[in-house]
């Protein structure tokens, strides 16, 4: 059984949602980014989303856009990311790691080569921000050949019919985007989100992780009550951005935030 399925099965028995932090590879520097990655599990991360920087991240708000810019200023390439993961895996063999990114850098790397090396370096899945189900066939088959999951996304605009089609080949978990929007801007209306997640669960045999707009412990707790995973992106990246002038503070700040979110998630379950 792969790490992702393993994680969610384990958490299901413990009735707890997974804490899924997002960091952008190479942000703010390759070294600090590696350190963050290595330490996230001990900070409470159940699964890690590792962002692959892209020059034109159209699904992201200003906070993550700036993280992409910082990473690219360090000339961060996919090859470097694979090395990062290999290093990570030398410390950690159990925490699932999912790559998240835009199509073009993967295409430039070569789809097959990408999935092959992603697997080899120790990644478990891939989230393709700008590849909807109509376009992901070639990615899917390469993933399958290399024992990786392509994590599909559902959104508030996804109709029941689309959802059905989407779930057909979904693997690992479903990433539910809580708002029609970009990362790090508005948050979902609580009542609305609750209802949508209830609905989603009716049709969805896979675990559901919710992302976009989760900032505070309270946000995390609410989501944890209705979903199997809580993705925290911009709020974490903001902690990096806030401490750029004193980089030694970044890891402790992120750790503190992680502790809060983890606590909130654990409370939700109780």
């Amino acid at each position, binding site marked *: 059984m792969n790490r992702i399925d393993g994680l969610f099965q384990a958490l299901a028995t413990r009735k707890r949602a997974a804490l899924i932090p997002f960091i952008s590879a190479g942000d703010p520097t390759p070294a600090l980014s590696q350190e963050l990655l290595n330490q996230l599990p001990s900070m409470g991360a159940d699964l890690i989303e590792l962002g692959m920087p*892209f*020059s*034109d*991240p*159209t*699904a*992201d*708000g200003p906070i993550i*856009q700036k993280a992409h810019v910082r990473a*690219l200023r360090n000339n961060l*390439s*996919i090859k470097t990311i694979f090395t990062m993961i290999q290093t990570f895996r030398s410390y950690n063999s159990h925490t699932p790691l999912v790559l998240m990114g*835009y*199509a*073009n*850098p*993967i*295409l*430039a*790397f070569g*789809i097959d080569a990408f999935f092959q090396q992603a697997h080899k370096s120790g990644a478990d899945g891939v989230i393709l*921000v*700008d*590849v*909807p*189900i*109509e*376009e992901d*066939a*070639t990615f899917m*088959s390469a993933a399958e050949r290399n024992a990786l999951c392509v994590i*599909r*996304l*559902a*959104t*508030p*605009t*996804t*109709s029941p019919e*689309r959802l059905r089609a*989407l779930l057909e080949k979904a693997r690992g978990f479903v990433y539910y*985007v809580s708002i*029609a*929007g*970009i990362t790090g*801007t*508005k948050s979902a209306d609580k009542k609305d989100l609750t209802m949508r997640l209830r609905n989603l669960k009716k049709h969805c045999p896979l675990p559901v992780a919710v992302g976009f707009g989760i900032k505070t412990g309270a946000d995390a707790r609410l989501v944890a009550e209705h979903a199997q995973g809580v993705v925290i992106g911009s709020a974490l990246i903001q902690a990096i951005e806030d401490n750029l002038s004193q980089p030694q503070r970044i890891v402790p700040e992120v750790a503190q935030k992680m502790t809060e979110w983890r606590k909130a998630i654990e409370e939700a379950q109780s």
Partner: protein
Amino acid sequence: MLKATPPNPNPHTPDSQGRFGSFGGRFVSETLMPLLIDLEHAWQQAKDDPSFWQAFDAYARDYIGRPSPLYHAAALESHLRTHKAFKGILYFKREDLNHTGAHKINNCLGQVLLAKRMGKTRIIAETGAGQHGVATATVCARFSLPCTIYMGATDIQRQAPNVQRMACLNANIHAVDAGTATLKDALNEALRDWVQHVDDTFYIIGSVAGPHPYPMLVRDLQAIIGKETAQQLQDKGHAHPHYLIACVGGGSNAIGLFHPFLADTRVRMVGVEAAGRNTTDGNHAAALTLGAPGVLHGSYSYLLQNEDGQIQPVHSVAAGLDYPGVGPEHAFLKDTARVDYQCVNDQQALAALRLTAQKEGIISALETAHALAYVIDNAETFEKDAVIVINLSGRGDKDMQTLAEYP
């Protein structure tokens, strides 16, 4: 190669997935997919609805001023005959005479009528040269729809007259500082707006770029250029053109002229890209000539990117060509060798603008000047009596400041 579906039997229209050959498609976040599918359906219906075209034609005639003339550019022709061994017959398709001064309004008129039909209450658009922004602001004023125009801060600087016009038309202008603060970045930001306003907002894309159905939709609307040209050439006693020449930014004015002639193998076509300062990375915008296929702004097409798949900074003296991508149909037409893509640098374009102004009394847009430069600088290559149509895609009023900076 990114295509898993069977090949498209009709090369001149995209398949159900929006593919021209392997190019095109819909590379957007899941949030936008339902909107694109809606848009596609709405367009299929409108396209087959005579009342849609009735409205379009009426506004095209009385509001835009169509048909745009097909002008025999006898003065430039005779200059080239004398100085360059030119032997062809030169025509300008005068899109510069359209309301607001470029071909862009053809597309905006069609899209705003579609937006109305779909019950949308808010419009967004990106703009580079400001021509598409002005055209969008114009139709939005006319049809009482609020609009927000995304424009790179660099372009706001160099195309100030168009910014003032948009403001006068009550458009909400949103300066984009990200990246190189040009057209690409404006498009990014417009997409971000769209995904945040999925219920009420219609995104009027300004070229044959973006996810399906835009490349098809915009092309269907701009094809009026080529259709009129065919008729006008007949009226002037030419059975068909021998050459069609147009500049290529996103590619809408070019495809508009080319499309009705694609099946006619007697017609040769040249799309002219911006070679900028020179052809080294970051100094040009010649995506077809110097780029490689990839995904940007929702479609798979030629792109200017580095080996990591990161989009490269680009440059052209013409803001409307200053874009690292190109419409996917052009990618297909390049790979099938149906259209010849060439490029022309800043200096050639500036010189061509000036020569055409001085010989014909027509000040073209800097974008357009790339098409003019191609013909002027390759004048001797055209056969005797070859009928050449250059798409005069827009007027240069907006470029006077830039011209002053390049004396």
